[in-house]
């Protein structure tokens, strides 16, 4: 029976009882309990079933290392699987369900798996996947699926909120045990800005549980005094329930702060992810006790020895009335003493060492506890809870000497320093033969940009186990009441000669059901690397990441390989230390804050008028304005015809606008564009192409000369930031002595394209002081002045082939101008048009679109844009690349127009197959479609495409493939389908 003791329990408040629900049953606990301690108090020994064999499992540990006690916690929007009972603080109303069983925890069908355990060893899945083939679908997959996964997946949206917080400090101390407290105090007194993080609610770590006296005062008092001193220092910040989950390069650390997990009141952020930059990181992360590998070491009631005394001292619960301690070191004797002093029975201490313990043995003897030296546990008796142990010689094969009845086994196989954070950025470890542990090697620390260590360890994390040594490592010389310990004896298997039957029941990894026999099998099958063995057996791959199993597993592996432990090495330690919530990683970035959506000044109007949105980069642009009863396609066609017949308005505010100014601006633009910009007259506009150094088209747009030394470069919507960066890159890194300044003024202006035969009429209706006549305002020029009451700059440019103006006003006036145009244009039939109409209008005119006709492998010559490439210029970016033989080859695919014979629309992405196959067995191709639309103007499908020798094949009919395997015939034509002579735009 596990039960609540009458007295003890330093962390619980017996005046504050709380209720929680386990599998629908109401349980009672106290404030200060963890879920695990409360379950023990309610005699709930069995907490779940194991992953593979569905064996009954109980709590093993008392902290973050716990592999078994994982629960589906909460309900609805607060449901979360795999919550660890040992780190979850109890609160009123908490609800949990055990995992991985059906139909119930007590009667589980999957438990038959353990009867087949002989046939389910490591590598079973890998081997059995293959033969015979049909078995996969009908036998293996259903079986594996049924046994896959521990917890359930949440079904509802997370009801909680999360946030991030950036923090900077000189020194980050991780761990609020005595080592961390001492280290923080020392650094704080040195005037450093210190942040101390403790993952639990409580400070002091093991020292307070073990009842150590430091310089004559109790560890508890020492901790309280030190904490008070730290809290009094303005340069020290102390945070509990905040776990340093990972150490990254440049002193970057993530802290996982749990704000409401321990409260009934869930208001406010649940978790806060601290994004810390620390000058130096001190890990005072302590050590984790190792289990011993004996048969039945996974039966509920077998716990780590230190955990057993944690439950008594911290939470006032006993795991059992009769506890057998089994150990290879002196530390576990403390458990016997504490249990005995709490009035509980300790029938025996089974010490694997023939010589037994050091001076602590005398204390135990005084309490009348029997010590069996050189002995081992052959087997634990019991099914869903421990009923006794069979004792044997450690040196033998497991012949039973005697049986001892008990309901708890407290085991200790020694201690492993928590080296995770030390190792995340490459800190190396040394194997300490005497203590049988990996210890951080200070001479091979993780190093920062200056080549110096940016992480150091202190206390048990360094491998010091006595209080005096721990504090000495932290810079404090103290005297304690601890006696010297006798050496530990490494015990990796109990008894050392255990046969196959026992080894098959000796668990290494509880959560993933990996046994001693599995690791030995892996070694026999040739898995010599610890990383391979890990993956083959799944050792250490569960949510606890092998905190208990790794060292034992690799010791078994090294023995099987006849290699030394340091030669086998450890697996890689990776963040996070324990799992952190997805919500914490997301922070505030959810719902409307998930991603910044860039909105133009006219966004609200579009949204209120049927906008079907299209993401263009981070912008939202209107694809089409859909009216009642229309499909999106209907709307697009209507908008196009209206531009051709009346007048339309397009929100072009997203186009990039970059000012380039200076004495060398002309020279600079001549280098950036393929055509000549330095000769452009003031007040004039010119379409330009930009290529990268490799000759490929990168961006295009209209360049305007605003003044003698000032140009305004329009870029594509997606290109604004990129091209501005591109310009600055060349100016700052290559041509740093050229006198040019740039400014990205994209968002300063709202820009509206007004296009259609009635465009001039519409603008003239608004009035103002500008001459908008054909003669006074010719094509490819701009004017500046008042358009009505708006401060406007108007460019007479056309991307639709119609009479067209682009009106640019300060962004603040954009919404008003848009509304004014709709109002003034009512009797002219004005309609807004979206990006799809714009695309089709330009395709009807044979204008190329960056991203459609280009894909990063296309040069201007491929698109017959030789007219936009200056032959006079000595150089421009991409010129030399375009002269390379492959680029100049007449065999490159070139742009042509395409007209289907049946008037249908060629599917997007279609290719033109050519006879034969390439060396990869793929069909040869001779062209592909780049833009393809239904043209409402021409009432047929039109397309542009790149075709081998295309311009020389005018009139030829070629075939494009369709997804259904059929072909569509299309005639090669001139890409300009509409108004070839440009009369419409020039009225």
């Amino acid at each position, binding site marked *: 029976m596990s039960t609540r003791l009458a007295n003890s329990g330093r962390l619980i408040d017996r005046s504050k009882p709380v209720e929680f629900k386990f599998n629908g049953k109401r349980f009672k606990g106290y404030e200060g309990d963890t879920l695990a301690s409360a379950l023990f108090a309610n005699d709930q020994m069995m907490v779940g079933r194991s992953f593979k064999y569905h064996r009954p499992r109980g709590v093993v540990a008392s902290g973050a290392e716990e592999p078994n006690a994982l629960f589906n916690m909460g309900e609805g929007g607060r449901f979360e699987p795999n919550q660890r009972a040992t780190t979850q603080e109890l609160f009123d109303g908490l609800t949990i369900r055990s995992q991985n069983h059906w139909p119930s925890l007590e009667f589980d069908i999957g438990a038959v798996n353990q009867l087949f355990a002989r046939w389910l060893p490591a590598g079973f899945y890998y081997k059995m996947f293959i033969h015979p083939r049909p078995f996969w679908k009908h036998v293996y997959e259903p079986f594996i699926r049924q046994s896959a996964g521990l917890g359930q997946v949440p079904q509802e949206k997370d009801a909680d909120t999360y946030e*991030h917080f950036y923090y900077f400090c000189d020194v980050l101390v991780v761990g609020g045990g005595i080592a961390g407290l001492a280290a923080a105090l020392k650094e704080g007194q040195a005037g450093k800005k210190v942040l101390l993080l403790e993952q639990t609610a409580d400070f002091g770590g093991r020292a307070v549980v073990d009842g150590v006296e430091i310089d004559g005062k109790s560890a508890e008092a020492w901790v309280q005094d030190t904490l008070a001193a730290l809290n009094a220092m303005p340069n020290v910040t102390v945070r509990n329930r905040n776990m340093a989950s990972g150490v990254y390069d440049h002193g970057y650390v993530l802290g996982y702060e749990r704000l409401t997990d321990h409260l009934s009141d869930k208001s406010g952020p649940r978790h806060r992810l601290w994004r810390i930059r620390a000058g130096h990181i001190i890990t005072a992360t302590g050590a984790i006790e190792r289990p011993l590998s004996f048969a039945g070491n996974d039966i509920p009631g077998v716990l780590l020895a230190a955990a057993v005394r944690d439950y008594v001292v911290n939470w006032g619960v006993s795991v059992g009335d009769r506890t057998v301690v089994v150990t290879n070191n002196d530390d576990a004797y403390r458990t016997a003493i504490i249990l005995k002093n709490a009035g509980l029975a300790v029938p025996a201490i089974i010490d694997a060492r023939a010589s037994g313990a050091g001076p602590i043995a005398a204390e135990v003897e005084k309490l009348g506890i029997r010590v069996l030296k050189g002995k081992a546990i052959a087997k634990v008796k019991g099914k869903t809870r421990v009923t006794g142990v069979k004792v044997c010689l450690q040196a033998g094969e497991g012949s039973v000497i005697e049986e001892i009845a008990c309901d708890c086994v407290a085991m200790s196989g020694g201690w492993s320093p928590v080296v995770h954070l030390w190792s995340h950025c490459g800190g190396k470890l040394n194997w300490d033969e005497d203590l049988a542990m990996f210890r951080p090697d200070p001479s091979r620390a993780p190093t920062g940009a200056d080549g110096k260590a940016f992480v150091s360890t202190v206390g048990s994390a360094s491998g010091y186990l006595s209080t005096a040594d721990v504090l000495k490592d932290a810079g404090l010389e103290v005297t304690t009441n601890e006696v010297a310990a006798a050496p530990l004896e490494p015990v990796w298997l109990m008894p050392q000669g255990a046969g196959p039957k026992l080894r098959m029941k000796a668990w290494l990894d509880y959560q993933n059901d990996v046994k001693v026999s599995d690791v030995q099998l892996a070694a026999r099958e040739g898995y010599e690397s610890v990383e391979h063995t890990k993956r083959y057996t799944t050792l250490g791959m569960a949510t606890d990441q092998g905190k208990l199993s790794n060292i034992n597993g690799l010791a078994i592996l090294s023995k099987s390989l006849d290699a030394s432990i340091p030669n086998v090495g450890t697996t890689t330690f990776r963040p996070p230390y324990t799992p952190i919530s997805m919500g914490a990683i997301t922070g*505030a970035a959810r719902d409307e804050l998930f991603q*910044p959506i*860039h909105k133009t000044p006219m966004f609200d109007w579009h949204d209120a008028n049927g906008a079907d949105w299209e993401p263009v980069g981070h912008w939202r642009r209107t694809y089409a304005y859909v009216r009642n009863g229309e499909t999106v396609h209907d709307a697009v066609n209507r908008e196009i015809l209206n531009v051709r017949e009346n007048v339309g308005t397009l929100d072009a505010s997203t186009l990039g606008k970059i000012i380039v100014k*200076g004495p060398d601006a002309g020279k600079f633009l001549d280098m950036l564009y393929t055509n000549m910009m330095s000769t452009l007259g003031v007040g004039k506009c010119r379409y330009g192409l930009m290529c990268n150094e490799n000759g490929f088209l990168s961006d295009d747009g209209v360049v305007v000369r605003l003044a003698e030394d000032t140009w305004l470069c329009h870029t594509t919507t997606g290109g604004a930031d990129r091209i501005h960066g591109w310009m600055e890159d060349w100016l700052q890194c290559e041509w740093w002595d050229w006198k040019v300044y740039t*400014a990205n003024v994209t968002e300063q202006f709202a820009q509206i394209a007004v296009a259609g035969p009635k465009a001039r009429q519409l603008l003239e209706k608004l009035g103002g002081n500008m001459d908008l006549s054909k003669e006074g305002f010719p094509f490819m020029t701009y004017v500046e002045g008042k358009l009505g*009451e708006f401060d406007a700059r108007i460019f007479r440019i056309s991307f639709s082939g119609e009479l067209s103006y682009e009106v640019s006003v*300060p962004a*603040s006036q954009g919404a*008003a101008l848009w509304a004014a145009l709709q109002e003034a244009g009512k009797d002219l039939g004005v309609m807004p048009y979206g990006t799809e109409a714009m695309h089709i209008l330009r395709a009807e005119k044979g204008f190329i679109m960056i991203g459609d006709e280009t894909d990063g492998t296309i040069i201007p010559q491929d698109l017959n844009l030789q007219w936009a490439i200056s032959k006079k210029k000595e150089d421009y970016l991409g010129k030399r690349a375009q002269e390379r033989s492959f680029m100049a080859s007449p065999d490159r695919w070139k742009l042509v127009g395409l007209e289907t014979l049946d008037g249908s629309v060629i599917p997007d992405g279609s290719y033109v197959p050519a006879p034969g196959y390439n060396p990869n067995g793929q069909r040869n191709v001779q062209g592909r479609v780049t833009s393809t639309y239904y043209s409402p103007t021409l009432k047929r499908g039109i397309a542009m495409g790149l075709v081998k020798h295309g311009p020389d094949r005018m009139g030829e009919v070629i075939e494009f493939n369709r997804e259904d395997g059929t072909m569509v015939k299309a005639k090669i034509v001139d890409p300009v389908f509409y108004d070839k002579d440009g009369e419409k735009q020039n009225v």
Partner: protein
Amino acid sequence: MSNAVSALNGKTATGPVTVQELGLTGMVTLRGDFEDEGFAAAVTQLTGLQIPDVRQFQTDGVKTVLWMSPDELLVVLPYTEVNAFVTAMNDALAGSHYLVANVSDARAIFSVSGEFATEVLGKNAPVDFEASQFVAGMVRRSRVGQVAAAYWKLDDGSFRVVCFRSVAEYVFGLIATSATAGPVGVY
């Protein structure tokens, strides 16, 4: 001018930390050689303020000159004065190599004030806002959440935050959400 509306038209979220969009505000980008006497003289003459040191700003309460980069300043001034200022600057610097651009409409500007305003910014910006590190008179160009932003600290401990106009709603939402979530308790 009645047609002109700022990005969020003065939207405000009031609380222990208040976030307010400041409406139409004049902002002018100035690029030039800070070492050049003519440039420095023009800045001082037209703003009444010195060119600030690296990551600093100068202000008289009406006009503010902020260091943006080794060759870029941001001048913040009343919206109605921008056109005259740009013209005067062009006149003063005519013949030299410089750039003046009105960016008032390209931006949104916010005030973030209140007891834990510093922590609210600290939730969203990778900057050390410790009082001894980020003092009044300092400006940083960095980011807020996922977008570019600049922020500076005034004598009363409040902050100004500037971002692009198109993401004003995002920035306002992020800061207001962080304010509602409450203090961290370290500053």
